[in-house]
């Protein structure tokens, strides 16, 4: 008997943490204790969250990769599913299928310098990889997070930056529009990335998640700084419905973003990534 990829498991909202306007983190736990004990995921993977009568939405896990018993999903209100979810409180139940997709190969880069580049809601899918680095800090060289948002009040997880910095991750934030009290960088992530000292580009890996156009220019900047396309990893997004490569929606050239991705090495996606309308 093969597993039915359409079967959702019932999860309960254990905790809701407001992040920024329109974004909250939902800690979900399985109602079935066996499922709750056995569920595992890898950094960068996603779940299909299901609200019966409304629909499903592909949501990356933003949880610690070693999470047990409940798993964080940071969700921005965007469509019908996320709007309905935003009206639910703790204790409400919904469906979950997953985890699906490829993961950030962070554990394969021991000894390397690591650059994370995130834009807006692109930080949550990278957070499990950042947590992995925090737990295994000695396994990596210099580690930097370049994070861009529209404005200072839309930077995600600001309460965590101090802990990340204390653990030896350089956090460089930048905003498109500054406020009077903002003393940090202004401009796109590539402005910061272009100036970032890279001591050994041949031993630097870059992980990026954000809007397509941001990732495109991030990859271009990385290549100009001496990284090869094989040293750049990105997480792509397309319409996802089945999450298992059977519905056809998420195709980008030869790739099914759901099952071949969402995390890709840049050289694999580069020929198709910025082709208009592909």
């Amino acid at each position, binding site marked *: 008997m093969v597993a039915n990829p359409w079967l959702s498991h019932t999860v309960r909202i254990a905790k809701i943490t407001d992040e920024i306007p329109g974004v909250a983190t939902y800690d979900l736990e399985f109602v079935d204790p066996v499922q709750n004990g056995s569920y595992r995921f890898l950094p960068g993977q996603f779940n299909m969250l299901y609200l019966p009568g409304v629909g499903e939405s592909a949501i990356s896990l933003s949880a610690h990769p070693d999470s047990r018993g409940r798993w964080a999903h940071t969700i921005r209100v965007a469509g019908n599913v996320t709007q309905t979810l935003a009206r639910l409180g703790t204790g409400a139940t919904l*469906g979950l299928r997953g985890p699906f997709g490829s993961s950030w190969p962070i554990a394969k880069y021991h000894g390397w310098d690591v650059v994370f580049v995130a834009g807006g809601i692109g930080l949550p899918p990278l957070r499990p990889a950042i947590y992995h680095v925090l737990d295994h800090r000695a396994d990596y060289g210099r580690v930097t997070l370049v994070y861009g948002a529209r404005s200072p009040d839309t930077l995600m997880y600001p309460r965590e930056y101090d802990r990340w910095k204390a653990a030896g991750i350089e956090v460089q934030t930048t905003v498109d529009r500054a406020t009077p009290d903002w003393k940090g960088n202004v401009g796109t992530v590539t402005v910061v990335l272009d100036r970032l000292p890279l001591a050994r580009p041949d031993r630097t890996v870059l992980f990026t998640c954000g809007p397509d156009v941001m990732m495109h220019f991030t990859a271009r900047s990385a290549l100009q700084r001496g990284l090869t396309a094989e040293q750049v990893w990105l997480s792509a997004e397309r319409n996802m419905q089945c999450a298992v490569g059977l519905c056809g929606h998420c195709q980008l050239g030869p790739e099914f973003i759901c099952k071949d991705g969402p995390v890709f090495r840049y050289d694999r996606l580069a020929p198709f990534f910025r082709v208009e309308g592909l």
Partner: protein
Amino acid sequence: MPAAFLEKCQLQTLFDALRGDGYQVVGPTVSQDAIVYDEIRTVDDLPRGWTDVQEPGKYRLERREDDALFGYVVGPHSWKKYLFPPLTTVAAADRTDAGWAMSTPAAAVPRYAFVGVRACELAAIRVQDRVFLEGPYVDPIYKARREATLIVAVNCTQAAATCFCTSMNTGPRCTAGFDLALTELPAGFIVEAGSDRGTALAARLPLREAGEQDLAQADEVRERAVNDIQRRMNTDGIRDLLLGNLEHPRWNELATRCLSCTNCTMVCPTCFCTSVTEVSDLQGDHVERQRHWDSCFNLDFSYMNGGLVRNNVRSRYRQWLTHKLASWIDQFGSSGCVGCGRCITWCPVGIDLTEEVAAIRETAS
């Protein structure tokens, strides 16, 4: 089992045997001026004495001069409507005191006997097998139906103007993927078995040994189909040709003709795109997730993040053609096209993919 002969007046024994074994027999029949696939009870339900005339954007039935039962090629239907139903429930949810309870419905699996499956259609079933059964995830609905299905193939003895199976190496001769294969002659059928199940079925039919003359005649009528095929598609390096010409001007020109109507994807025997719709009762306490065929030509197919990825006809036709003929090879190890010609016939403006590939090849970058 050596090739055997079944008198034409005995074909009903095949249907009776299949029905006796509990199969629902489906096959070609005439409906609304087309040959479509539907339930077949007797030989009289078959399109006796009919043939089809096909051209880009044209399909007509005409009377034959003989009483052939399989004297035509493929119509607007394909067998995927049975193996991969156009509308099916994939999951359900019920509101309980303890919250939502999720399930996948255990629908009864129909046992089909397909009668009249052509070589290109056997190839199409093989293509969908790769999609639904041989990847990291298996579609349980397709799997259950596929395993329960018995296939009686029929060798083509003629071709339509839209056929190009010889270019795709899928026909016209049925070589694998069937339980029984028939070749129609004026007096009866040459019967070949392609599986143990087919051999066992054949043993229960009133067959006689096929004579040398019968076999020679069968070779001759099958050769007629090969010689009938006029359409060609050059598939040399087609993957790189198409994916290397994503900005070719031909896509713009195509967009001025293509209506984005989805006909080609609906008649294609391998297209597998779907969407899921939530269908709930009035209280919203019982919800079913209904999967239905969708098409990359539909505007909202590529909806993402408040926008459409493929927001013009150019990008949607390009997606269809490059997927079918190029990226399908990366994804599933074979072309998604079997050369059946349905998309050419049923395109309301007669777009012919073989012509489009040739045009791109001519001025490829």
